[in-house]
């Protein structure tokens, strides 16, 4: 069989497949998903999401259970969107062996409600002193914070405005506000970001009016010599709304988690279905071809597997063996190969009686040759439809196990995100951005492969098209 001969039926298949719009949509979504998987590191805002999903330190600078940024569109008072400013303007001055840097973070603030927190972060080496201040659009400058760091060896320098600049902002408030208003307050009851981002003047403690415009957060450092330095300075705005799909109670970016889960969903679905359908097809062919005792034994084993309720067994096995994802995939294959056996066996029984098989036998072809060269090529194309149709089942099974908290802890899957959501009270608290997207993605994946599968099925069983 030449290459061209092999291509002809494929071309014919494509010609028919092209006419099914749902099939094309399925193919399109599948293509987009594959692209998403390939370009994952470029797309997600947190590239280490796959490795550090359960690492709380990685997520500490995010806001907790923040809705998606686009929800601002429906709000009258716009909330601050989380962002990070990573390219500050840096200027260096040198004199008398003392080096002074000025790191300036410009930030344009155009919202109505202040962020939860601002975090300055950098990597420090050696000994240095640094101070944080802000220049506001109304021309006022507030000195916020000062600290001396000694003999650092590449640790993180972290200033969280919420905890570290309370006194300074309260002093600023005291200088603007009337005495009566101040007596009711203390530095613990006033959030620094509320002061920084509101118009100065009497009454600012109670009713804050947002001060929109260009802010400049300035970090000035003083250090002795080149060996002391402050690197990778960045300012993180911890907003009340965050990212494309918000964050969960563990401050994790849900969008990153979902994109990272996509590759696992595809892997679980495709690997399980491809391997199990191929096993099933070969099993059916062998049982039908040899017949007799072989058929009886194989049918009995098949029936044994059919009589097992899949999910309960998977749950118990996962609870007992604390599995990795590969164990889960293996177990799924073990139980889902039975799906296509029955149909294939009956089809193979028909093919077996064809004259060309008889002719092949008469010519002295071995059993294996007949199975591989004459029967399998006829039946394997049929299996593509059932392959596609068994993908959603595998994905749902894995998510169900993960939903119970029995998933592989080293990876992120959609089921695990839903497990966290369920345990974190997302339903009760109405944190919809934590529940809707993962489940919707599972459903969309299911739909995609259903589109593909039914489109292929239609071509293979044209009887169902009309009366």
């Amino acid at each position, binding site marked *: 069989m030449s290459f061209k001969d092999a291509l002809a039926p494929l071309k014919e298949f494509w010609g028919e497949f092209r006419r099914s719009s749902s099939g094309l949509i399925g193919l399109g979504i599948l293509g987009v998903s594959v692209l998403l998987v390939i370009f994952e590191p470029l797309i997600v805002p947190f590239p280490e999401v796959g490795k550090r999903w359960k690492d709380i330190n990685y997520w500490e600078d995010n806001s907790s259970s923040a809705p998606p940024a686009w929800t601002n569109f429906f709000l009258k008072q716009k909330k601050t969107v989380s962002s990070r400013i990573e390219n500050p303007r840096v200027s260096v001055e040198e004199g008398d062996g003392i080096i002074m840097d000025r790191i300036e973070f410009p930030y344009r603030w155009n919202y109505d409600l202040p962020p939860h927190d601002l975090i300055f972060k950098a990597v420090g080496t050696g000994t240095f002193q640094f101070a944080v201040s802000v220049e506001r659009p109304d021309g006022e400058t507030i000195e916020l914070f000062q600290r001396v760091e000694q003999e650092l060896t590449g640790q993180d320098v972290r200033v969280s405005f919420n905890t570290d600049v309370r006194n300074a902002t309260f002093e600023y408030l005291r200088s603007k506000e009337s005495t009566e208003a101040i007596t009711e307050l203390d530095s613990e009851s006033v959030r620094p970001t509320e002061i920084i981002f509101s118009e100065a003047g009497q009454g600012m403690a109670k009713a804050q009016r947002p001060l929109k415009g260009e802010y400049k957060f300035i970090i000035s450092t003083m250090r002795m010599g080149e060996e002391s330095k402050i690197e990778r300075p960045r300012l993180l705005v911890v907003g009340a709304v965050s990212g494309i799909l918000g964050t969960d109670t563990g401050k994790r970016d849900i969008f990153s988690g979902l994109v990272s889960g996509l590759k696992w969903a595809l892997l679980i679905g495709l690997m399980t279905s491809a391997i199990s359908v191929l096993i099933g097809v070969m099993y059916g062919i062998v049982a039908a071809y040899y017949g007799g005792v072989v058929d009886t034994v194989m049918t009995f084993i098949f029936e044994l597997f059919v009589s097992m309720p899949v999910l309960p067994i998977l749950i118990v096995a996962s609870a007992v063996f604390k599995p990795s994802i590969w164990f889960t995939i293996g177990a799924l294959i073990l139980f889902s190969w039975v799906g296509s056996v029955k149909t294939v066996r009956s089809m193979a029984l028909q093919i077996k009686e064809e004259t060309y098989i008889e002719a092949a036998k008469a010519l002295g072809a071995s059993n294996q040759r007949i199975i591989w060269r004459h029967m399998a090529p006829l039946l394997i194309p049929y299996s593509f439809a059932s392959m596609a149709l068994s993908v959603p089942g595998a994905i749902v099974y894995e998510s169900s196990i993960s939903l119970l908290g029995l998933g592989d802890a080293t990876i992120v899957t959609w089921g695990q995100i839903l497990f966290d959501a369920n345990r974190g009270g997302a339903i009760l608290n109405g944190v919809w951005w934590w529940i809707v997207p993962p489940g919707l993605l599972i459903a969309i994946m299911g739909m995609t492969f259903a589109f593909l599968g*039914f489109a292929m099925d239609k071509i293979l069983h044209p009887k169902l098209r009309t*009366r």
Partner: protein
Amino acid sequence: MYKWYALKRILRGVVMYVILMFVFSALFNTVSETTQRSQIEEQVRLEANRLKNLKSDQIEAFRKQRKEQLIKQYRFDRPVGERILLRAVNSVTFNFGKSTIMKAANGSQQVLAIIGEALPRTILLFTTAILIETVIGIVLGLIQARKPGGILDRSTSLITMIVYGMPAWWLGMMLIMVFVYGVKAFPSGGIMSAPPPDGFMRVFDVLWHMTLPVCTLILLGFWGLAFLIRNIVLGILQEDFIMSARARGVPENKILFGHTMRTAAPPLVTIGFLSLLASISGAILFEGIFSWPGLGNLYWIAVQQNDVPVLLGNLAITTGVYLSGLVILDLVYGFLDPRIKVGGKA
């Protein structure tokens, strides 16, 4: 002979169950032994604590002796093969032993009592849902088959594909979020209010608690059923006897309900039953979302509390229910389709 066919099928079901129990007991032997050993330790410790007026070496001796006795009783001194066999026999005779933590409503720690409590609730929930589902599915499927390629047929097929891979428990979460915490129309979970109302109101209370879970199952279930029924009916409509009926001028409705439905009955029953079994095999987890205290919810609790005896007992019972479902299905099928039992081979 239907009698022989039935007997044979039932026997085969029993044999399957025994084999499966054997496989499970071999598979989960290590973990259940660990649990049992720690249960023995616990029991010995408790008993030793009760002996107050003995010297410490006497207590030590008692402990040792008692432990040996228990180990002998549970046959931990016997080879692994024998223990696996014993456990399989225990499973087949529904002797699952005691749970580690969980309790039945009356305080019993017998695994069988805990599961026996949950089983009827699961059956109630799922059979109700499947009955409604099947009725809707048949009606919708017939309407679809009447005009294949029409707007209704196409949109229904589309929805079938859209909900094809949607997990029931996720839809349950959605419905709870909307109808329990958004519009406060339904209770958040459970089977009855606390305290449960008396008399006739109790039935309504259960129905009220059932509404949301049943709706979840139906919303996902009937599309696929309708699609399958449509395909079966379309297949039958292409048969020669339908063509001859049409040629004779039999009205279309009579063809659909008289000729087609009659032929389609066996596969329809199979589909309804199979989807019930598929729920047991797949959707059972969604009980946990609604805290519906059935077998599925039992899996949640047993996994959370790491109660291995309950987990294994639950698995055995679920498998038993599933298997008997398959047997009943074959029996009904054999009854409806006389061709099957002629060969004597299912």
